[in-house]
């Protein structure tokens, strides 16, 4: 099982996530698709760490997981705030950034 398989799989997962971000409009699902893309990056990092026999790539993957958790927390907080203010949960209608 060469490392190329894992990296190609990560490319496939990244493309699926990117497609999801482009297609879906619900901010919740867009956050889920961002998770997909970050996880694809994680898989590539771990695969490269295996290819070089160096565990530093795994530390990198761990830090990516921390950043993903932060992104989730802030994103979900935003979704709850949008819902509370009775705004539509649709990224196409929430285009203005002016408060």
């Amino acid at each position, binding site marked *: 099982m*060469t490392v190329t398989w894992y990296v190609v799989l990560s490319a496939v997962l990244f493309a699926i996530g990117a*497609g999801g971000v482009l297609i879906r409009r619900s901010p919740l699902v867009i956050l889920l698709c961002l998770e997909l893309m970050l996880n694809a990056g994680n898989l590539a990092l771990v695969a490269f760490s295996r290819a070089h026999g160096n565990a530093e790539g795994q530390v990198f993957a761990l830090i990516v997981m921390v950043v993903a958790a932060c992104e989730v927390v802030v994103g979900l907080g935003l979704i709850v705030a949008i819902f509370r203010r009775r705004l539509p949960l649709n990224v196409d209608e929430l285009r203005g950034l002016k408060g």
Partner: protein
Amino acid sequence: MIYVAFFAGAIGAVGGAIAVIAMRNPFYSVIALVIHLVSLAGLFLLLYAQFIAAAQVVVYAGAVMVLYVFVAAYVGAVEEPLWEPIPGQRFLAPLLAAALLVELSIAILGTGLSALDSDGPTLPLGFGTPTQIGNLLLERFLIVFEAASILLLVAAVGAVTLAGRSRGSPDVDRAKEPAA
């Protein structure tokens, strides 16, 4: 044997990813993402990343997904209208994703990195164990580790500020309204 494990994990991961973007109800998308994450943890095990696999299942598929489930239940099913700001977006978007995949595949398959075409070097005993990762985090990557903890603190405070009820804002408590 390793091929069977890889393809089982790969099919689970790709199937879960497709289900995430195909499901109408966000709740089912979250469940599909859990399947995706668990399959990915299996692939991490195949790559000798034991600690990452365990963290993936416990932190990601466990804790973060519970957060998602709660928000999905709080917000409820969201109607996605058919109105499109960019005409033909529904067809253009998959096309762009496919183009991205082709581009990435060309970059990976045409790379000169010889390490990619091998199974990788023979690994020392204890590769990817919590001991090794912990040693790296607390010795070589100590500043990164501390920065991550500060980032988590900032994110937690930010989420409370964003989602918390502020006084004087035109907030309406939905629970007090009669059901429509």
